[in-house]
């Protein structure tokens, strides 16, 4: 028979032949696959959205929480009201202006009181000498007071020049001499208040500069105290010191309190459950699975039964990161992302060939020899998992027992598989190729229920270790290639290490 004749015969025989197939079942499978594809995209977008929200939540909330804690502690430890820098500066500036004015009035009153006392004393005595002396005393006291103020002004001006090297307070000593002592004091206090405004503005531009200026202001305050202690032995010293104290912005002292307060925050015993925890987990699962087939033809049933009989235990590893929010009354909310790998191993004894072996060369009789070759199939499924659980924790000292329930969303990554055959004979199995037809399709996604138990220990440094059993299983059976439906139950052990913040 010629080649062309053979080809023609084949063509004629096959042409237009319709193989029996259930179109409704096929349509159902097509729809299922189409829906799977659509849903997987929807889940990817959704998980990205949730992930972004969690990251933002993670980044912003701890800062807000820390700020709130810090403020509360400051309020408790210090009666001084702590507000943010900007508000503080603004209020202290207003406060300072008022104080400066009050100080000026007080100083004026002091001077007038002293002058009046001396004047009245001299007038009451009516003695010329005494009056003369009284006037001298008055003048002396007046001069002494003025000298004192001049010295103070000189010192303040000098300090102001040091504080403000750009010459904002650029009065010369000659100018100060020509100006009355009251005016000088007023000017110096005004300059001082102006200078004290500067750190508030410059704080935004240069924090270091602001700190330096604050130190200078403090040293100025100390110098003034010393000065008044040395030169003013009158009973008004305390009052003046108080007055001076009032002229210094409060935020200088707040700075002093800041470090001890932070120390206090760290030193506080950690009796409360930390608000957030971030950690890593590792799970090892043994998997029990049940295979069923959609179209129960004999071949598929046989294949499924063979798998059921020959499949050894399946193991799965999962490693991931998680974020936990501890809620009130011992409840906790956990989510994260993990990578899992599941390996299944089973035998597949496939009839490869049937050959007729005649009894002799010309004999029509003979036997049909069927060659059965053993095959071992290893399939690997890799997936990305996103758990979301809510749990309850019971604590006793540093120990805690917890139980979490929730859902686990899984997206299948590219599967891989290998076929090993003993086609060369004996017990040696050699790799035949990649088994792609036996593995589940990529991008398949499904949801499982999940239960975690755990016994944990929290160290004083915030590290928390938890070990416990976990069970999860998909809600529905999953369709894999060759019309097989697989339902897997995972029984495993979970270990996690987390750090609270």
């Amino acid at each position, binding site marked *: *028979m*010629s*080649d062309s004749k*053979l*080809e023609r*015969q*084949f*063509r004629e*025989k*096959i042409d*237009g*032949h*319709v*193989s*029996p*197939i259930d*179109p*409704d079942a*096929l*349509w159902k*499978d*097509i*729809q299922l*696959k*189409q829906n799977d594809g659509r849903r997987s995209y929807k889940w990817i977008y959704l998980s990205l959205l949730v992930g972004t929200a969690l990251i933002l939540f993670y980044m912003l909330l701890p800062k807000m929480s820390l700020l709130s804690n810090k403020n509360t502690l400051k309020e408790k430890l210090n009666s001084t009201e702590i507000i943010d820098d900007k508000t503080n500066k603004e209020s202290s500036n207003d406060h300072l202006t008022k104080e400066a004015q009050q100080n000026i009035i007080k100083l004026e009153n002091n001077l007038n009181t002293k002058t009046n006392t001396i004047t009245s004393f001299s007038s009451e005595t009516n003695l010329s000498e005494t009056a003369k002396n009284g006037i001298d005393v008055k003048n002396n006291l007046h001069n002494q007071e003025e000298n004192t103020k001049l010295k103070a002004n000189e010192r303040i001006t000098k300090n102001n020049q040091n504080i403000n090297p750009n010459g904002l307070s650029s009065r010369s000593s000659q100018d100060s001499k020509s100006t009355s002592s009251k005016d000088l004091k007023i000017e110096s206090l005004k300059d001082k208040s102006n200078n004290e405004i500067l750190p508030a503005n410059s704080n935004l531009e240069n924090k270091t500069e602001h700190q330096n200026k604050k130190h200078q202001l403090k040293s100025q305050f100390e110098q003034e105290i010393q000065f008044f202690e040395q030169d003013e032995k009158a009973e008004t010293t305390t009052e003046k010191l108080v007055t001076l104290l009032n002229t210094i912005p409060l935020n200088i002292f707040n700075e002093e309190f800041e470090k001890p307060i932070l120390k206090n925050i760290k030193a506080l015993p950690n009796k409360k459950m930390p608000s957030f925890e971030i950690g890593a987990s590792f799970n090892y699962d043994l998997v029990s699975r049940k295979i069923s087939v959609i179209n129960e033809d004999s*071949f*598929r049933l046989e294949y499924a039964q063979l798998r059921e009989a020959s499949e050894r235990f399946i193991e799965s590893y999962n490693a991931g990161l998680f974020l936990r929010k501890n809620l009130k009354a011992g409840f906790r909310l956990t989510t994260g992302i993990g990578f899992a790998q599941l390996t299944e191993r089973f035998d597949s004894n496939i009839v*490869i*060939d049937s*050959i*007729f072996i*005649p009894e002799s060369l010309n004999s*029509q*009789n*003979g036997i*049909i020899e069927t060659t059965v*070759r053993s095959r071992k199939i290893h399939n690997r499924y890799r997936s990305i998992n996103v758990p979301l659980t809510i749990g309850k924790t019971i604590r006793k000292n540093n120990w805690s027992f917890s139980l979490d329930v929730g859902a686990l969303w899984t997206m299948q990554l590219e599967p891989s598989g290998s*076929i090993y*055959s003993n*086609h*060369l004979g004996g017990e040696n199995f050699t790799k*035949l*190729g*990649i*088994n*792609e*037809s036996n593995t589940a399709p990529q991008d398949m996604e499904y949801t499982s229920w999940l239960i975690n138990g755990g016994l944990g220990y929290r160290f004083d440094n915030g590290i928390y270790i938890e070990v416990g059993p976990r069970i999860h299983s998909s809600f529905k059976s999953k369709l894999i*290639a*060759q*019309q097989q439906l697989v339902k897997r139950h995972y029984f495993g052990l979970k270990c996690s290490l987390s750090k609270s913040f």
Partner: protein
Amino acid sequence: MELNNIISGCQNKRPDAQKALVRRYSGLLFTLCRRYCYKQMDARDVLQDAFMMIFKNFHQYDVSKGLLDHWLKRVTINVALQHNRSQKIFAIDLNEEAYLLEGDHDCPIDNLSADEIIKLIAKLPTQYRTVFNLYAIDGFSHKEIAEKMGINETSSRSNLSRAKAILRKNILNNQKSDSCRIAN
């Protein structure tokens, strides 16, 4: 549903039209898939993928350029070839020389049914089966086959002759076993 309605419905991605297309052409295309696949269950998977590809690209079908059957077959063949490429299981141990027959033997296939012939073709090694199907049944030239499969034309011719030799041998074996059964 009329063919025109099916075509316009599929172009608009209407599920009822798609279902009608599946009902109408699944048997025909399944035969094609069975010829290209070694295992029947793989053939069903290929057919499923082929329909998904057809629905996705139905807007590309131009009524003026040919019959719908031909376009559907072309798409299905491409999906089947892609499947065979991804399968990568070519290392099935077949002692080719044992199958090859010397000389020109008479090989009548009149007694064989279409289903038996399809099974015989499916038993061929993947590459031979693909070349035989493309050339002998689906009418592609060696040049086209070489392009589709990424081989040269000489290989295509060689694969075709080997495929035919194996088929002849299998047909003869089949007949012998049949006569053996009758004798018993």
